[in-house]
Every structure is written in C-alpha cells, then in structure tokens.
C-alpha cells in the first residue's frame, strides 16, 4: 500500500498534534508533516488533521482564532481540491468556527470538563462500529448545537458520524461527530488517536477502537 501523506495543522496551544502524528506514523505508516499556523502550505498531502488542544488558549471562543489563521486558508483550498480534513476535539471546534462544518460547540451542559471513555454509536461510514464501541473524550466545550434547519439538514442527509450512547455534554440529538455535505470534512469530539493501544481497564483489549476509526477513514481516500 502506498504510504499516506498526512498534514497536521498545529496552532499555539494545540496539544494532541504529536500524539496524533506519532499514532499515524507508528500504527498506519503515514508520512506526517506538521503545518504551523502562521504559514500557508503546499497542498501535497492526502489527508489533513486539525488536532485537539486549546488553540490560542480557547480565547474569544474555542477554535475561533485558529479558524482565522493563515494555514486555514490553505486547508480551505485543499478541501476545495477534494482533499479530506478531519478535526478532532478542538479541531472539530476549529472546523465549525471556520464554517467548514455546520453548528457550534458550546460549554458542556454540566459545566464540567469531562475526560473518560464514552460509548458511541457509529453512523454513515462508521456504521459498522462494533457493539460496545467507545472512545475517550476530553473536553469542556463539546455540547453540539445547530439551528433547527441546519440540524434537520444534517440529519436528513445522514451526516452524523457518531452519536453518544449516553449523552455526556448536552449535545443536540446526542451528536458526537458530523461530516460536511461533500463528505470530505469530518469533525468529532472523541479522540480516536488515544484509543490505539489495548486498554488496561477494558476486557475487550483486542478491540482497538481507534484503529477502526482510522481504517474506515483511510478507506475513503
């Protein structure tokens, strides 16, 4: 198989960029390039990731300042050319703030930062997620909202990719992740890059749930 080239956008305050890069290199033999926020980049990657973290310290709104960084103009151009982009956690917030995905992510209903494994139901390209599928979440602002028309459109077009089995944050329709109408842009709050090693506290240690996510994703390329 051809080595996939992955570009990872890095902003001041990103903190899952290296985890993600290492995961892609070690588990999927990807060629990884880190792309700094203040520079535009050449579109030469198969897939782009917008990683988790606290870009710009979550100032103004989470993802708001990162969404307006120079590297995001290149990302938009890449998507126009048919490249794929995936935002994880803060990356999902950045993609909604840059209007590449609809909706917004606001403070968790509980007001608490939540960091734990959470049950998920896969839909769309991820509909084969096995029973008991789960991934870690780690966010304070993962409460997905959208206008009623937008929400209807997302649902009507089958663009929800993951739903929480037990909604932790108040998200509308239990939404944990969506894709855009072109099905080239994906965003989700859970962290698949943190679920690649067999988990110590999980009886189903053979099932590496993060692997399922990336394999399904790469199959689209």
């Amino acid at each position, binding site marked *: 198989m051809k080595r996939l080239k992955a570009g990872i956008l890095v902003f001041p305050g990103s903190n899952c960029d290296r985890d993600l890069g290492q995961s892609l290199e070690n588990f999927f033999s990807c060629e990884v390039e880190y792309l700094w926020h203040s520079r535009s980049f050449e579109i030469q990657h198969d897939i782009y990731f917008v990683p988790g973290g606290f870009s710009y310290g979550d100032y*103004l*709104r989470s993802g*708001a300042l990162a969404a*307006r960084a120079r590297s995001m103009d290149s990302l938009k151009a890449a998507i126009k050319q048919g490249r794929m982009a995936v935002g994880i956690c803060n990356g999902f917030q950045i993609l*909604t*703030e840059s209007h590449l995905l*609809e*909706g*917004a992510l*606001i*403070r*968790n*209903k*509980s*007001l608490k930062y939540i960091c734990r494994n959470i049950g998920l139901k896969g839909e769309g390209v991820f509909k084969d997620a096995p029973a008991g599928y789960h991934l870690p979440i780690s966010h304070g602002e993962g*409460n997905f*909202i*959208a*206008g009623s028309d*937008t929400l209807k459109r997302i649902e009507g077009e089958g663009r929800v990719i993951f739903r929480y089995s037990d909604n932790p944050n*108040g998200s509308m329709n239990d939404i944990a992740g969506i894709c855009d109408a072109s099905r080239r842009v994906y965003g989700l709050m859970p962290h698949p890059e943190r679920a690649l090693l067999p988990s110590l506290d999980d009886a189903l240690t053979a099932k590496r749930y993060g692997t399922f996510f990336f394999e399904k994703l790469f199959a689209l390329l």
Partner: protein
Amino acid sequence: MSFTGIAIVRFKKSVLEPQGQAIHLSLKERGETQVELVRVGRYIEVQLNVTSEAQAAEKMQNIAEDMLYNPVMETCEIKIEKR
C-alpha cells in the same frame, strides 16, 4: 479621529448559557430569591483609527461578523463611542 467600537456579545435566548445558570444557582443559595435569570455575555472594546463615526460603525460591523461573534449561538450589539 479616534473611535472606540464596542461589541456586546450575548448567547441567543435559545442557547443554554451554563455560566449564567451557575451564577443564578449560587445567588439562590445565598438567598437572592428575586433573581429570575442570569446570562453571561462578552464585552469587547476595539480602538479604531478612522475618519468618521460612520466608518467606525462599518469597520466594527465587519470585524464583528468576521470574528467577534458566532451567529450560530450568539447575537452582537455594536456601539460606537468617540474617544
């Protein structure tokens, strides 16, 4: 001439605003029974170097729409002050 643009960003009424709810709850626990609702928003000052108030208003509107608020969840009220 210098103007200060002020943006007051509020969560839409339909959007749950948990900080306000938490403050409301704390106030209730302190015996403030007459408080009916608390909403937390954001106040942003932008100092502008422009030639007229109309220009300041236009510039401020553009900045607000580009960055200062997210219309999915917020509304924005703009005021211009001479400084």
